[in-house]
């Protein structure tokens, strides 16, 4: 009897995470807790996690790359090369890409998590891994994406497969609408403050509700990006018209997007749910030395800052640059404050130039740094010793930005910009025109 005439067995309700994993595992349904093997649709790595570690291991195994078309290399951590060691690492990446004839290489175009979707590599329904902890960023597009180490990446690159414990879903439901000057970054700092850096328990966090639906893609990327700081394996937003329009505009063909509507969780699928009111959220600041040390900016004592840093995949996308420019336009940063801006990608910077956003930032006193990971992880450049830094990045661990004596406060680009104007941590809602 043909398939279409078989009696339909009722589908068991499943969350978006379960559906994505089931598809990759070649199964009709998967249950939280079981260990499955998934086929990988896309593997992304960068100059630090990628060729410098993969190449010697691949040579040792004598094994070929399983599918070069499914591999994306982004050179972003050690560019521009600051010293001989950085030059060596970047040269290994470039040479390996050439000898392997990799079809998808993005060199100096910006940070991997922003370049990957920006260059049309991601789409709803994919199962993807990245050689970087902020790889859950891809979940903003309805792809199951998570970070792995280099040895596990080697395994993916030679087998095309990876094991996974099927996650539970923790749904963060944000009702209402964010106030002007309050962002996805503030939502994440509030969640990390409440649940802690292990609160995600390496499960799948799904962001839902009217406030999330209202967010542009860049803001959804910030939500999923910082799922890493929540300790989740991945962060997810179910795709909608915003997702599809954004991807189409970046050259993803219609046939690759067909059927995206099925990538949504069933309402009756078991999930842990937490509810929040977006309208009640104030801008958040995480005090040194943990993203979990967050509180409302209004609850902070007077906190002077020396450096205001707008950078990273988390906090220097086009929308982040626009936010900072809205606050800074027509003003100068306070005397003694150094404002550093490292746009997340060349495309974001180019668009910000066209819109006059970069002019506003420069006129306010910003020093514009290369579109790379920069000082975020202290790989390419570092912040001065002893500095008090307010930063739009994701992590403020002691020593993270390259100085063991610096103190880093995390906040949204709005709050970083407002603080640069005041010379102390400031509420951006008072600085908006």
């Amino acid at each position, binding site marked *: 009897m043909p398939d279409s005439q078989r009696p339909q067995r009722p589908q068991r309700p499943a969350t978006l995470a379960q559906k994505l994993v089931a598809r990759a595992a070649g199964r009709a349904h998967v249950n939280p807790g079981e*260990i499955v093997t998934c086929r990988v649709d896309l593997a992304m790595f960068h100059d*630090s*996690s990628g060729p410098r*570690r993969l190449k010697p*291991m691949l040579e*040792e*195994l*004598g*094994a*070929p790359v*399983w*599918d*070069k078309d499914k591999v994306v290399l982004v050179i972003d951590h*050690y560019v521009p090369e600051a*010293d001989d*060691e*950085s030059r060596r*690492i970047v040269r290994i990446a470039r040479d390996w890409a050439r000898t392997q004839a990799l079809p998808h290489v993005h060199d100096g175009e910006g940070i991997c998590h922003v370049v990957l979707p920006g260059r049309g590599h991601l789409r709803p329904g994919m199962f993807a891994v*990245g*050689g*970087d*902890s902020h*790889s859950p960023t891809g979940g903003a597009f309805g792809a199951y994406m*998570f*970070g*792995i*180490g*280099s*040895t*596990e990446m*080697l*395994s993916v690159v*030679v*087998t*095309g497969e990876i*094991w996974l414990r099927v996650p539970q879903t923790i749904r963060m439901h944000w009702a209402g609408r964010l106030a002007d000057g309050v962002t996805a970054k503030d939502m994440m700092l509030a969640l990390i403050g409440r649940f*802690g*850096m*292990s609160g995600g*328990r*390496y499960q799948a966090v799904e962001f839902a509700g009217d406030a999330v639906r209202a967010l542009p893609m860049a803001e959804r990327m910030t939500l999923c990006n910082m799922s890493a700081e929540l*300790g989740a*394996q991945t962060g997810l937003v179910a795709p909608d018209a915003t997702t599809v329009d954004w991807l189409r505009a970046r050259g993803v063909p219609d046939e690759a997007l067909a059927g995206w509507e099925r990538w949504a969780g069933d309402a009756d699928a078991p999930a842990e749910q937490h509810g929040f009111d977006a309208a009640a959220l104030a801008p958040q600041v995480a005090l040194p030395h*943990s993203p979990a040390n967050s509180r409302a900016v209004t609850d902070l004592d007077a906190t002077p800052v020396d450096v205001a840093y707008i950078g990273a995949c988390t906090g220097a996308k086009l929308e982040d640059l626009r936010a900072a420019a809205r606050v800074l336009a027509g003003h100068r940063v306070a005397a003694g404050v150094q404002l550093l801006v490292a746009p997340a990608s060349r495309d974001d910077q180019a668009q910000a130039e066209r819109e006059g956003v970069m002019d506003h930032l420069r006129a306010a006193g910003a020093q514009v740094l290369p579109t790379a990971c920069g000082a975020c*992880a*202290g*790989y390419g450049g*570092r912040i001065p010793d002893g500095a008090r830094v307010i930063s739009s990045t994701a*992590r403020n*661990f*002691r*020593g*993270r*930005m*390259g100085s*063991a004596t610096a103190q880093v406060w995390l906040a949204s680009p709005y709050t970083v910009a407002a603080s640069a104007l005041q010379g102390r941590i400031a509420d951006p809602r008072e600085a908006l025109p």
Partner: protein
Amino acid sequence: MTPPPLHRVWRLGADIDTDQLAPGHAMKHGVDVIARHCLEAVRPDFATGVQPGDVLVAGPGFGIGSSREQAAAALVHLGVAAVIAPSYSGLYFRNAFNLGLLLLTCPDAEALAEGDAVALDPIEGCVARPADGRRLDCDPIPPFLLAMVRAGGLLPQLRLRFAALKRRHPTPPLETR
């Protein structure tokens, strides 16, 4: 039967992050150099004082942060036999087993003190302190992960798998789909 070997405890706090285990400033170097800076911000005496076979005992959230597996490789390089903590970053957990580092998830790890001598039984899932006979239960570890640690990590397992493939196919198999 010879008694199981005893391991000396280094006691650490909660939320030991990857940037403490493998500091960013050292990341451009090899694991040997990174290992010299391992935990320098919290235990400056660790990298020089650790002996092969020692174990780390930490609070919850061990290994939070980056995907850099050097944060596990540095401990392997220094000869650390295992980490014992109530919880780990999921990403660090994968990396550790991939590199052959045993992690024991032990809800009562707090009961162990600096300088204690402990015996490990990863198969039974327990840590024992012979000095007072205390036994602490640990979460069971999936057999395939225990096998990975016993093999020295994922790379040695892949080496065996591809060596076997090559014996069957003298030319490298083309596995592109």
